[in-house]
């Protein structure tokens, strides 16, 4: 639709501009602070002209925040969550879309409803399960009297335990399930013509072959789009890693930032804290910039 509306254009641009300022001003402050020497950053009011000590500040932040270890942890956690989510969601959506089992719609709606239960809401039970990931299985066995049966037959007490605290599994596994991603995959699978599945069936492809050789290659853009969202989501995890890790060498970058924030009895070195913040912000920004073309394409659902 092409219309000439100069006044409306001006208004929209003003709104956009204001929004941009509101969004970018804190970032600009952080950037400026990160480039200033300590003496300049504690001036009130702080200058808005960038200094020249960005690299020095960054180096000190890297040192002080133990970014080397935490960086590895962050990357492992983020990629773990990313792959876990894509694998889980695509397989779930495949099951919901292509298999006609009893309670299929019920299963789908149960998954969908978990949108209303983000991690923050169920953090206590999730933590309990993470303490022993096999706890639900153990309880199931107990309900079914199977533990007693084994104890009676073999004389061994069944006590399943798999502690996820302070492990990479603990950082990632509880975040694998994703209703959003499942829904996105489902919507995409629904647009794939049924004939494709039938043609594959006629060609002798089993369900898994169809999934890996036809559905997944067709979902490329979709997966790319999802990866962008999930990368940012995984990278920014704070509450869960805070809870599940106690060892310093299992901490992630986002948690590590806390170390950089000056406490009462330290020098208020905000320039170092801001340099650290900038570094931590960088990976998601890079991912979004690099993949944004795919991101838009995937969400709009176009092949070309």
């Amino acid at each position, binding site marked *: 639709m092409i219309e000439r509306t100069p006044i409306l254009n001006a208004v929209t641009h003003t709104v956009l501009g204001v929004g941009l300022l509101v969004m970018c001003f804190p970032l600009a402050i952080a950037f400026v602070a990160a480039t200033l020497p300590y003496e300049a950053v504690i001036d009130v009011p702080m200058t808005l002209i960038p200094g020249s000590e960005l690299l020095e500040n960054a180096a000190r932040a890297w040192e002080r925040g133990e970014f080397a270890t935490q960086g590895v942890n962050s990357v492992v956690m983020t990629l773990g969550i990313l792959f876990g989510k894509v694998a889980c969601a695509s397989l779930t959506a495949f099951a919901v879309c292509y298999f006609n089992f009893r309670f299929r719609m019920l299963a789908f709606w149960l998954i969908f409803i978990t949108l209303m239960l983000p991690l923050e809401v169920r953090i206590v039970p999730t933590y309990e399960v993470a303490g022993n990931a096999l706890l639900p299985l153990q309880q199931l066995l107990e309900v079914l009297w199977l533990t007693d049966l084994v104890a009676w037959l073999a004389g061994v007490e069944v006590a399943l335990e798999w502690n996820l605290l302070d492990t990479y599994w603990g950082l990632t596994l509880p975040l694998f399930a994703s209703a959003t991603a499942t829904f996105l995959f489902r919507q995409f699978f629904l647009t794939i013509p049924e*004939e494709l599945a039938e*043609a*594959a*069936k*006629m*060609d*002798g*492809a089993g369900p898994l072959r169809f999934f890996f050789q*036809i559905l997944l290659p067709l979902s490329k853009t979709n997966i790319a789009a999802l990866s962008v969202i999930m990368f940012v989501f995984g990278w920014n995890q704070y509450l869960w890693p805070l809870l599940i890790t106690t060892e310093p060498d299992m901490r992630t970058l986002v948690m590590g930032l806390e170390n950089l924030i000056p406490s009462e009895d330290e020098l208020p070195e905000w320039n170092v804290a801001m340099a650290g913040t900038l570094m931590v912000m960088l990976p998601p920004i890079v991912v979004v910039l690099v993949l944004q073309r795919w991101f838009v394409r995937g969400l709009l659902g176009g*092949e070309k």
Partner: protein
Amino acid sequence: MANVSLQRVRKSFGTTEVIHGIDIEIGDGEFAVIVGPSGCGKSTLLRMIAGLEAVTAGEVAIGDRVVNDLEPKERDVAMVFQNYGLYPHMTAFQNISYALRIARRPKAEIRERVERVSRILGIEDLLARKPSQLSGGQRQRVAMGRAIIREPDVFLFDEPLSNLDAKLRSQMRVEIKRLHDDLKATSIFVTHDQVEAMTMADRLVVMNQGVVEQTGTPRQVYRRPGSTYVAGFIGAPAMNLLPATLCDDGAAVEGRGIARTALPNGAGPDRSGRRVMLGVRPEHLAVVADGSEGLLSARLLYAEDLGASRLLHCAVGDDELIVHTQDETGDRPGDTLRLAADPANLHLFDADSGRRLEVAGGG
């Protein structure tokens, strides 16, 4: 190669039965066309033969095997889909060879067979392209290649030409038929297009609302339609059907606007006064000079010029009627035409059931 036999086949979706007991025998190497309007169950029937749809009751056999419970890949059938069903992310070569690659055939054999098939279909130069880079007709050929390469017992075609433009459609029609003559594999072709049905079939199966109305060669079905439904469906423009009454103890027929006409072989005496539908094909009606004896008189509504011939749309009372003629007459809309037909070309149908009455000679 194999024959295909359906016995008392039924199909229900939930509580709705869409196919009400169908028996069809298709001989080895035959080209059978199942024709009917959309929603008559013809595609469902084909999908049951393919194994994409479960058979509710009855028996589907290919060759000597009952295949009701076999997976599609175990039935040795190949299918060409309406929208081709090509894998968009694979090249034509990969599409055609997919079944062989799944079956883990040696690379050299795959290459050799793809080349042979693509030579038959004239798509050797397109093998490296993806479906999105192919035209409709080329996609059609790739889809056929995917079916042919498996050298199946039975080919199934699910309205494969309906997405092509008219010119390409008639061209592909000939090609598929020629291909069948070469390969000699049993083929079942589903279509709603009666021209495709007439031109391609060795055996024609006319379906309507989940039952088979009539089977036979195209010629038989055209010459002796078994019901008013088949009469209206096969042949274009459709057969004219006019209400009439038997008289003279069933030896003649008359009706409003229809002169008393003797039938070549009369019916029994109980048939006098029986209400019937009189059928006569547009191409069997001829305009005759005023005053001469004719079957009926009709008022010309308008004439369509097709170039080689003309279609005269006429009215007989409240009923419409079409005459397909090659004569150049100078008639104007509103004129009254005298129409004649050879009594051998008249068809009689029961007015209530629509079934054919074996009174008028048609064969």
